[in-house]
């Protein structure tokens, strides 16, 4: 392309990003602190707001480890063990990506709700899933289920089993082999998978709104608190809540690390696909 197209293309690209992403996100920060920091602080330290924040964090603390263990387990199974129907397991893991979160929430109600398949049994044992914490955790864990598998599996397939076999030959047990050989090789993709999972669980709305009942101070997560604030005239609370959620999501990205280069690497020839930990990620300097 000739140089005369450079500026028009830049204007289109930056203009679109600015109007769609940068200015809108900036304006939420502006709105949150429009009436001063104290007002925003007051709006997110009400009992309902604090409860929503704690509930969101509790859900993250339960759902993310569950999905991580499941994700690594399934990735190991799919990469190392062939059994009848393993292709089916591979395909089924992706279901949550293909289904609307609202539908996932609804589907949980149909199994664990009052009129659901397990409804009578759960009621008889005094367990409430829908409209309480277990339901919220299940909905969040369900929507975020595929991320760890999808990040870890390609790397496991890529690194092969030679080193693991060597470790086993030298007398290492399966757990030592996993801890000393497998885990270090998948570390980065695992961190990225956990990042995606956490971001998704933190911000999940559609699946949670339907199973939680959104009762303020009881089953209202931070995302539900924000929506409630907008619809019931507590905009400052909503904006401040949105800022907290956005900052939490950014924190997760920074601590665990996004890896934009990863996608590029995967499209290359297999010989240079191996992700080494010494490689510093930088965004497409090509």
């Amino acid at each position, binding site marked *: 392309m000739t140089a005369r197209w450079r500026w028009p293309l830049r204007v289109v690209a930056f203009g679109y990003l600015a109007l769609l992403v940068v200015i809108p996100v900036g304006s939420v920060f502006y709105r949150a602190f429009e009436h001063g920091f104290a007002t925003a602080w007051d709006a997110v330290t009400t009992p309902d707001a604090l409860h929503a924040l704690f509930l969101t964090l509790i859900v993250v603390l339960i759902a993310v480890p569950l999905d991580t263990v499941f994700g690594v387990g399934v990735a190991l199974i799919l990469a190392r063990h062939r059994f009848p129907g393993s292709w089916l*397991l591979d395909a089924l893991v992706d279901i949550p990506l293909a289904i609307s979160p609202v*539908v996932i929430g609804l589907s949980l109600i149909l199994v664990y709700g009052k009129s659901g398949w397990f409804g009578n049994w759960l009621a008889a044992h005094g367990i409430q899933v829908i409209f309480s914490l277990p339901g919220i955790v299940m909905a969040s864990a369900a929507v975020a289920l595929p991320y760890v598998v999808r990040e870890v599996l390609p790397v496991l397939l890529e690194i092969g089993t030679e080193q693991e*076999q060597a470790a086993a030959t030298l007398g290492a047990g399966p757990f030592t082999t996993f801890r000393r050989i497998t885990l270090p090789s998948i570390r980065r993709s695992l961190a990225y998978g956990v990042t995606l999972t956490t971001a998704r669980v933190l911000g999940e709305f559609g699946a949670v709104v339907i199973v939680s009942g959104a009762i303020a101070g009881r089953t209202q997560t931070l995302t539900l608190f924000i929506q409630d604030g907008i619809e019931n005239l507590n905009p400052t609370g909503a904006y401040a809540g949105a800022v907290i959620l956005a900052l939490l999501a950014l924190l997760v990205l920074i601590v665990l690390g996004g890896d934009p280069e990863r996608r590029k690497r995967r499209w290359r020839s297999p010989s240079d696909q191996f992700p080494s930990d010494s490689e510093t990620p930088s965004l*497409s300097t090509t």
Partner: protein
Amino acid sequence: MGLSVPALGGVPAGRGRRRIDRMIGRVAGPSLAVTYLSLLVLLPVAAILSRALSGGFGAFWQAVSQPEAVAALKLTLVCSLGVAVFNSLAGLVIAWVLVRDDFPGKRVVGAVIDLPFALPTVVAGLTLLTLYGPDSPFGVNVAGTRAGIVLALAFVTLPFCVRSVQPVLAELDRETEEAAASLGASSATVLRRVVLPSVAPGMLAGAGLAFARAIGEFGSVVLISGNLPFKTEVASSWIYSLSQSDDLSAAAAVSVVLIAISLAVLIAIGLLRRRFEIDETV
């Protein structure tokens, strides 16, 4: 079949361990995984299908052919398709600038593209409502209109559209373009005959992912669309309001239609990927 970890079997002293490893690998591991998957996903999805058809096919058809359901499904499909097409073009331009152009702050632009991914959908909806809602500083109010839905969908699907094209563009051999140009091809011809054919599979994959995401989108749309029946009510909000009024069978029926559409799209992407040997991007 055969042994999955052959070397373990080769260690004479490792017989017991081999058995334990096989048990973990073949029985305990898969069973636990399948149980978890069943409790969270498989049983619930089966429950949707069973509930949708619990009143017979007649009841199912009635639920999905009801005017409000048809309007919601149609709106969802049209908006999602439009956004997928438009965002693929915008994504190509943005990816082009990121790959071929050089400017300070490239990393920041890269992070901005991933922002819609990290940002909770409700926050995304709120950000757009702030700037393009009733209190818009630009005087543009799209709240309660279809333009608002398109805007929200464009926001959440942007990363798919950029990230699917970017790697292909980065790998593209510039020599072919230069050769074409030196043989007298205009930039438009180079774009049409050299660049577009190479990036088309990536663009299509991105558009497919964006479409699949858009038809199920709820959080970002719900605040800005206002959920006006027949006007700005998308399929997922219709399912939500059905479930709120305890009409779970109708909600399940509409869900089945949505699931069928996204599965069809994702299978199409899968076939496309296999054909062009593209690995998954997101």
